[in-house]
């Protein structure tokens, strides 16, 4: 019962993250949305790994490394956003600007 | 007896937490809201810590509980001062 709640929450978080990734143009918000997708998948995987007898440590180990890798990817992405803003004065991708 | 103490102390802790949140929602400006946060909430956490302390099975767990409260107090005091100062010098911008 409660495992299903967490798994469905994870699924919904992936959907929310995809919405944010597509609808928001500001790149920092896209980084956050991307992290939502990742953590939603982690939650789904973690719930799936707890379905058998006891808790399967293999998904847990994968999720721990995944969380740390997600942070390092976010740090790289955030640095890219700052570098882009320094070069262009914008924090959005150029080809996606709304026409004036 | 220990259970009775847990009921009473956690209930008091909840009152402080709810009061702090009510203050956070109801108080009119940033600085009065800071009061609600740093005072009520950490008092609430203290009562929860004491209440749960009566349920611990080992002394080490009680020590860890007290460490948690001490760390939370240190963090809250520092944060309240820094955020209030930041709000004072930059003003309301959004």
């Amino acid at each position: 019962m409660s495992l299903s709640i967490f798994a469905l929450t994870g699924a919904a978080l992936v959907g929310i993250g995809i919405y944010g990734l597509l609808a928001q143009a500001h790149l920092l918000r896209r980084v956050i949305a991307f992290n939502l997708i990742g953590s939603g998948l982690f939650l789904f995987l973690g719930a799936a790994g707890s379905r058998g007898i006891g808790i399967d440590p293999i998904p847990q180990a994968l999720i721990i490394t995944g969380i740390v890798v997600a942070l390092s990817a976010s740090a790289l992405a955030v640095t890219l956003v700052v570098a882009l803003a320094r070069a262009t004065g914008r924090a959005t991708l150029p080809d996606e600007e709304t026409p004036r | 007896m220990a259970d009775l103490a847990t009921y009473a102390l956690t209930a008091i802790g909840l009152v402080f937490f709810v009061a702090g949140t009510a203050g956070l929602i109801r108080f009119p400006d940033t600085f009065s809201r800071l009061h609600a946060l740093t005072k009520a909430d950490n008092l609430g956490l203290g009562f929860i810590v004491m209440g749960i302390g009566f349920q611990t099975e080992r002394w080490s767990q009680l020590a860890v509980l007290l460490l948690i409260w001490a760390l939370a107090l240190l963090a809250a005091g520092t944060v309240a001062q820094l955020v209030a100062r930041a709000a004072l010098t930059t003003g309301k911008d959004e």
Partner: protein
Amino acid sequence: MSAALDIALCALILGVGLATVVGRGVFRAVIFFITYGLLLAIGWARLGAIDVALAEAAISAGLTGALLLAAQGRLRTMKTEAEPPARARLPAALAGLSVACVLGWAWFALPVDQAPDLSQVLPESGVGNPVTAVLLNFRAWDTLLESVVLLTALVGVWMLAQDADWDAALGPRFHARPNGVLANFGRILPPIGLIFGVYLVWAGADDTGGAFQGGTVLAAVILLAMMAGALQPPSVAHPVWRVGLVLGPLVFVLAGIAGALLSDGFLTLPLTIAKPAILTIEAALSLSIAATLALLVIGPPDDQGQDA
């Protein structure tokens, strides 16, 4: 009662997740994302995955918030263009909804596998914490490559420095009022955090904790000491920090080669030396993880703030 708690918690997680992607305001989204990590850590605690809860709590409280807030502040001082409004909301919502529905369907359609019973093989790993056993023994390849991924990300961050800044110390020039609240906090907390981080690495062999969790706590402590002005960020070429960055992967590879020579193959640990070997790898790895994560959040050398 227990289900009510889970439902309330998941409702909060979903509400906060939604709040990070709707509406306008980058700062608000960042703050919601910080609280999102906290709620997620409570969620992992509810699932009984204590090691994951620990990693999530340390990363989201200690590193993510500081990283995103610094970037948001930096974008504001550079006066970047205002955030454009959300576009194509209906197609985006439909895309998100359909993926969520597919995943939800998959949850009920997937066969329920029995978790592999590790209690038989756990004694062969040399450690008592099954998560540590998986990370550093059974699936050591993953962990080794992951520590290399962290280093690669750091090199990527450094490559984004401007040429003129290259020899300067990493990050902005942090300073604080001498004997002010921030400077004192930067002196009181790091010793406590250091002890806690080392404890997590040590305890991780048999209890909750491990190289990643302890390394993350240590990274947050290093970051805090740097922000409070108690510790100067190094330059890219700093020899001690460079050794610290590669120590973990290096010890890991050496242990792997030793396994190839003395035992069944690369990265296999014979039972007789498994525990001391794992503790050595963990100690070196957590040092490297701490240094890498802290420098990742600090960012490339950046003197822009000074001449602005």
